[in-house]
């Protein structure tokens, strides 16, 4: 549903939001200390990866627990390039990392094109466990358990006293914002509409002339590229690429951030990333300041994080972004409310088998949903990713042709 939020943004509004965010980030990075700079970079990296995953899982309907593996590919590409071609500028390394992970995404996407739901989840989960172990098996190339060191410095024109962490925060935020702008445009384009069509009903999408296989593989490529960029940034910020950074926990955290923020929406990707990065840090601060023993103090954040995940999912079924929109709606912001599509699943069969884009769509019911979010009857889809709320009429509504 909240994909609507992305869709109804016009390009100037997207660019404006990105610009405002950039100004805020620069202001914060100058005002706050080194540790907060590091956190800004961390959040930006998380946003880049989660935004790619939310497009894959939320828009094209393919679950992936393997995006941590793509991050590893991006990070190792960066480390190896900087090691062997030290003269390359960082933006060239970023582009190379993106290209390599895009290729990897194409391969995985093609292998995954026939898999659905839990089978896809299982295959991608194992990918994210298996790939980092390659680094252990070939220590000569990948540095084994110790990993590879990465040298990343601030450019000379900023002066010698310019803090490196601030430069890292700027670079990461810039990449994250560019990624978000591109993804927002992609999601509004024909490509994005094809993804949603494939997600909602593959057979109907194919009947309507969408190349299902190509749409699914393309979603994997886009998602992998984002993860690869995030991995490259991670390498630059942590100055070390080792298998221990790309555990099963990382891949699971990415999916968690996407769902908990609000699946399929870029605003949700940002909210989820903030929560994933900030809650454990905050809980650690609280625990250590109360002088608890280390075993307790280091595990209270873990337990609290688990509780937060469960509670958010139970209280805000549409994620944090959906919950915020609902709260704003309660507060009477009619503009926000008007953007919300109807929650009850509409007459799906006619919408699903609608003629291909180009013919005039039938007028759908008004998009304003009267009930609270999630009040519609349970979806009967057996697909793991079937989501209610994103009704077919919202797709017809935005067909521009």
């Amino acid at each position: 549903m909240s994909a609507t939020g992305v869709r109804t943004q016009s390009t100037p509004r997207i660019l404006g939001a990105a610009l405002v965010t950039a100004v805020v980030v620069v202001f914060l990075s100058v005002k706050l200390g080194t540790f907060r700079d590091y956190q800004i970079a961390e959040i930006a990296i998380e946003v880049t990866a989660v935004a790619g995953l939310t497009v894959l899982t939320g828009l094209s309907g393919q679950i992936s627990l393997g995006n941590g593996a793509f991050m590893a590919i991006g990070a190792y590409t960066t480390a190896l390039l900087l090691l062997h071609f030290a003269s390359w500028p960082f933006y060239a390394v970023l582009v190379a990392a993106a290209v390599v992970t895009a290729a990897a995404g194409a391969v995985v996407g093609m292998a995954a094109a026939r898999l659905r739901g839990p089978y896809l989840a299982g295959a991608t989960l194992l990918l994210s466990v298996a790939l980092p172990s390659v680094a252990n098996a070939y220590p000569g190339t990948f540095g084994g358990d110790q990993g590879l060191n990465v040298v990343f410095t601030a450019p000379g024109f900023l002066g010698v006293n310019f803090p490196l962490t601030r430069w890292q925060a700027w670079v990461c935020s810039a990449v994250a914002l560019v990624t978000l702008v591109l993804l927002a445009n992609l999601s509004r384009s024909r490509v994005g509409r094809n993804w949603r069509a494939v997600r909602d009903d593959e057979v109907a999408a194919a009947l309507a002339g969408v190349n299902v296989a190509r749409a699914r593989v393309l979603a994997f490529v886009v998602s992998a590229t984002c993860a690869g960029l995030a991995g490259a940034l991670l390498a630059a910020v942590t100055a070390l690429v080792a298998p221990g950074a790309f555990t099963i926990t990382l891949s699971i955290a990415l999916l968690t951030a996407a769902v908990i923020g609000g699946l399929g929406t870029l605003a949700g990707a940002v909210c989820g990333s903030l929560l994933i990065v900030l809650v454990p840090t905050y809980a650690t601060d609280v625990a250590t300041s109360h002088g608890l023993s280390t075993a307790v103090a280091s595990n209270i954040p873990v337990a609290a994080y688990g509780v937060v995940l469960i509670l958010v999912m139970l209280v805000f079924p549409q994620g944090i972004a959906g919950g915020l929109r609902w709260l704003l709606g309660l507060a009477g912001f009619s503009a926000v409310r008007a953007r919300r599509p109807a929650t009850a699943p509409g007459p799906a069969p006619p919408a699903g088998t609608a003629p291909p884009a180009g013919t005039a769509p039938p007028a759908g019911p008004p998009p304003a949903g009267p009930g609270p979010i999630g009040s519609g009857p349970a979806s009967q889809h057996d697909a793991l990713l079937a989501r209610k709320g994103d009704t077919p009429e919202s797709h017809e509504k935005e067909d521009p042709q």
Partner: protein
Amino acid sequence: MVEFLQFTLSGISFGMIYAAIALSLVLIWRGTRLLNFAQGGMAMFTTYIALEVIRHTGSYWAGFAVALAAGLVLGAAAELAVIRPTLGKPELNAVIVTIGLLILIEGVAGIMYGGQFRSFPAAFSVVGLKAGSTPLGVSRADVFVAAAVLAAALLLATGFRYTSVGLRMRAAAFNATVARLSGVRVARVITVGWALAGLLGALAGVLVSPSTFVYPNSMDSVFVLGFTAAVIGGLDSPAGAVVGGLLLGVALSYAGGYLGSQGSDLTALVALGILVVVLMFRPDGIFTAGRMRRV
């Protein structure tokens, strides 16, 4: 040849542990169409409970029984407390709730027991068995592992086939709406399924812990391989879970045995290779009848 026999037998022993986790996932999948990522975490916690009981009573079997009972209770409690409220919400929400549950359980275990590795006793002697003078590569404990999981699987299969609870569970898994109309309390059946899954997970935890030690993340890799086994076999098929577990266990045993030290690093890669090959030919697992969706 002797080596081959040894690798096969020890692979079967490990494979049966993956099969137990896979079976527990299949039980939950059939009832709720949900992957329970907390399965490994719950098993880890019940193993800690077993460890406490063994320490206080000195009896392995008391710990064994308490762990299974705790698994039963934990499974049912998880379903009632956090899974049932996700019904009717987007399906990935329930998955994230199980991930939250996993993280919560691991955090609580860390608070209560700390992070250090604890050894766990085996049920029987771990000295390798011999046929005449050739070592078989397995011990009495390994034989017990395979036998215990096999017994649990056979008991479950018998229960499904010959008891009224089993009939109700099969009906609910086949078609919840029709089962409900015929008077089956589907919600209660699902709770029973979660309880049985918790029991199987607890069994796997107690059986695998002598070789992995017990710590808050001890079941993570076992869970991943159990999940893989379930996917290979087909998530709808209990028989597939056992076959998938055995296939995976034996293949990984060969990889570890014949490829040397590099083989043990590449365990997950070998498992991925098997998974990819199986899913290439059977996208819904070996034992699930595929559904055609084509224009």
